[in-house]
């Protein structure tokens, strides 16, 4: 049966973590299933390869420390050069630090002027002012009408001229 295949079992955990019961089950199954036998053989070989690979060690050479210290110094110099050549980043806080006294004094001046204007600069208006204002408005209205008067005069002049010409024409005809 497919469910009895042991492939999943050997992939779930490292082979060294399998229990004796599980190993027995695997052996019983692989005795009958060639496909799983190959898989189990491959899993065992993989396990041995990985064990050998993980146990392989490399010792540092005698010059390793000198080499790393030189690299660290070089990295430090590079970092210093990068820091010194890099432009200062724009920041609101830095701008505020530089200009806070100027901004604060300007704000104080504006507030003082506003207060002074409110307290002393209020305009004094006499009681008859409303009438004079009204009359000036009427004047303006009449001034606006003056072209109408001129227009009327122009029409009257035009009419008179027309009448004179008409009388002249009549006289000539007569």
């Amino acid at each position: 049966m497919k469910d009895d295949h042991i492939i999943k079992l050997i992939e779930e955990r490292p082979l060294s973590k399998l229990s004796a019961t599980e190993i027995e089950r695997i052996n019983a199954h692989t005795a009958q299933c060639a496909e799983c036998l190959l898989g189990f053989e491959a899993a065992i070989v993989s396990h041995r390869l990985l064990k050998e690979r993980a146990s392989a060690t490399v010792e540092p050479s005698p010059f390793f420390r000198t080499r790393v210290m030189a690299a660290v110094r070089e990295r430090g110099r590079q970092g210093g050069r990068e820091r010194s050549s890099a432009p200062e980043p724009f920041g609101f806080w830095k701008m505020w630090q530089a200009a806070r006294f100027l901004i604060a004094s300007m704000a104080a001046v504006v507030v003082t002027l506003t207060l002074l204007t409110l307290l002393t600069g209020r305009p004094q208006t006499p009681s008859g002012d409303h009438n004079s204002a009204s009359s000036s408005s009427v004047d303006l209205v009449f001034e606006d009408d003056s072209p109408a008067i001129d227009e009327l005069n122009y029409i009257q002049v035009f009419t008179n001229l027309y009448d004179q010409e008409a009388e002249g024409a009549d006289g000539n005809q007569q």
Partner: protein
Amino acid sequence: MRRYSPRVFQVAGRFFRQRSDVEDAAQEVFLRAYTRLADYEGRGSLEGWLTRVATTTCLNLLRDSKRRPEATLTDLPEEEGDWLENQLADLSIERHLTKESSLVAADLADRVLATLSPDDRLALILLDGAEIPIREVAEMTGWSESKVKTQAFRARRRMREAVEKLLRRANGKEK
């Protein structure tokens, strides 16, 4: 540095096989630790923090190197083919190998692991090779424990399939 070099070389040695590669990786680990020392908050041990820096640095280096064309398992050297055939004579899970045989096995392991992704490789070496508990691997890599388990499960399958091909070839079964 003298105090922590063995630990850093142990971690780097699990990722890289050639001495020059291991030393380059170890140097990069120390450089990174030097520039990020401010990140160490003093909660755990310095060695634990350095192990994590070493693991992530080596994994990144391995990922960069894996941007090259994928490695494939071509014809094995004779001693590695012989080693594979000998393994099938004894299917006990734990088996003591001679020093020479261990070297051949480590070379062959590296060849097989080169066909896998860096994450697969890391999960297999740490969990199955070095037998480090899942929780510790999660701390070293910064992965969740469930990710470590899933990664290891998939990696075992891929490695088993790669070794199956080698075994078929060694047995002359592959057509």
